[in-house]
């Protein structure tokens, strides 16, 4: 376990020493604070609209950080050849994959915590309510989603050599699932065979990332989601994360790495 944490530690160190991520991080925090701080005559509709925009910004920024960071982990190690002195130590490829995943996930988790903290402070100061449980659930669900996304991107990075192609494909897939995932079954029923069966198959065998977007609960103060549902969604995310990491390990385990 120490080896996994050691690899994760290097991922986190690299992330906070990279200036481009700092810029994105600070920009998101500033935009969240700035948008939330503007006083629109305390019009409730406008406040909700601003909250929605801020949440979307947090979602997009954390997805960008997660995808771009995860996509470059293995290819950058191979390109800079830092993978060789590392693999020459008593560490398995499975531990490297797990460490990379953990590092990315923890780093994005820290970012998410800061974003939500700013958001909660600003939103609560406008509405004079503090729905802490809703915020905690929204942040947790988003972090669960990021786990699935990071594992999926790591898997992609084993097979696509260039981080840019992995990032682009990941953005398309995640964006597609977020936008169409919920409607795919309805869409399938309107199609003729064999497209209908194919779409239904995809619907049941894809990770439903759209379930993790709790924006309405936060924006409309709909109260907390039942914990059993949160637990089920967490288990679902853990299963998909495990599947992606397992396949990534399987691909990486057999990979020839020549100096």
């Amino acid at each position, binding site marked *: 376990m120490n080896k996994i944490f050691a690899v994760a530690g290097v991922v986190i160190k*690299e992330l906070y020493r990279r200036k481009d991520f700092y810029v994105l991080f600070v920009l998101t925090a500033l935009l969240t604070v700035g948008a939330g701080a503007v006083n629109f005559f305390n019009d409730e509709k406008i406040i909700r609209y601003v909250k929605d925009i801020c949440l979307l910004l947090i979602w997009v920024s954390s997805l960008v950080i997660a995808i771009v960071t995860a996509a470059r982990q293995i290819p950058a190690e191979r390109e800079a050849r830092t993978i060789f002195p590392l693999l020459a130590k008593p560490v398995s490829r499975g531990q490297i994959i797990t460490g990379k995943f953990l590092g990315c996930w923890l780093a994005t988790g820290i970012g998410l915590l800061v974003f939500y903290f700013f958001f909660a402070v600003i939103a609560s100061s406008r509405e004079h309510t503090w729905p802490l449980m809703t915020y905690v659930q929204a942040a947790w669900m988003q972090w669960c989603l990021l786990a699935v996304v990071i594992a999926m991107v790591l898997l992609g990075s084993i097979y696509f050599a260039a981080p840019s192609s992995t990032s682009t494909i990941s953005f398309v897939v995640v964006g597609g699932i977020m936008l169409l995932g919920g409607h795919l079954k309805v869409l399938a029923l309107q199609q003729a065979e064999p497209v209908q069966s194919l779409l239904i198959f995809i619907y049941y065998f894809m990770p439903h990332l759209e379930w993790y977007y709790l924006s309405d609960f936060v924006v409309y103060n709909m109260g907390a989601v039942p914990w059993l549902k949160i637990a089920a969604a967490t288990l679902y995310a853990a299963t998909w994360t495990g599947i992606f990491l397992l396949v990534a390990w399987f691909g990486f385990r057999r990979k020839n790495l020549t100096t």
Partner: protein
Amino acid sequence: MNVILKTEKLRVEYRSREFRQTSKVALQGLDLEVGAGEVFGFLGPNGAGKTTTMNVLLGFVPPTSGTASLFGIDVRQPIARQRIGYLPELTYYYKFLTADELLHFYAKIFGIARAEADKRIAELLKLVELEHAAKRPIKSYSKGMQQRVGLAQALINNPDLLVLDEPTSGLDPLGRMKVREIIQRLKDEGKTVFFSSHELGEVETICDRVAIVHQGELKAVGTVAEISAGHENLEKAFLKIVGFQNSPLP
């Protein structure tokens, strides 16, 4: 001889990804044994299979057939690398880390306790004369300094077997001398050193035994005296063994 590095009928074949391209055989039936306490030189022209052999021994490439073991453990198991140190030909380290952080990272990978790691790292930084730059990012180091960090990381676990891939290539005379000194020191401590090199004069000076590979096959193995027997020096013997014809140029 207490054998700590062994390959048996080792064969590595790289499958081509190009359509209708045949696969390339990098190693064919390599049998090699290195005993404890030896300084073993692994020689061969470019493309002979030296790097592939090292890649197999270090677990970067799985063998197509045959076996390779370190300390009696199959190289495919990470634990086989617990007692080895590896110095790559070029400096492949995390440039955003400082030397101190890099060495602590590798110490953690080896499972070395924090207090012991601190002590060991201080000793190593002194050995490679990098104490003054220990807290600076590696990206700010000169090439020689980066190579010295490499040496330090290769020794972090006080290895019983050191694998060096052309350790003096690209170094200035001072750097070469330092590497030779360290190899000599390790030899005196009873450690095993397995290294590839094109510097035959250097190999002649420090190696107990050498092996010459060519086109993926082991062509000769023995002491420097045995290999050089009947020739002016090791270089002449090497050229004869790899079938080099005298150049028509003056």
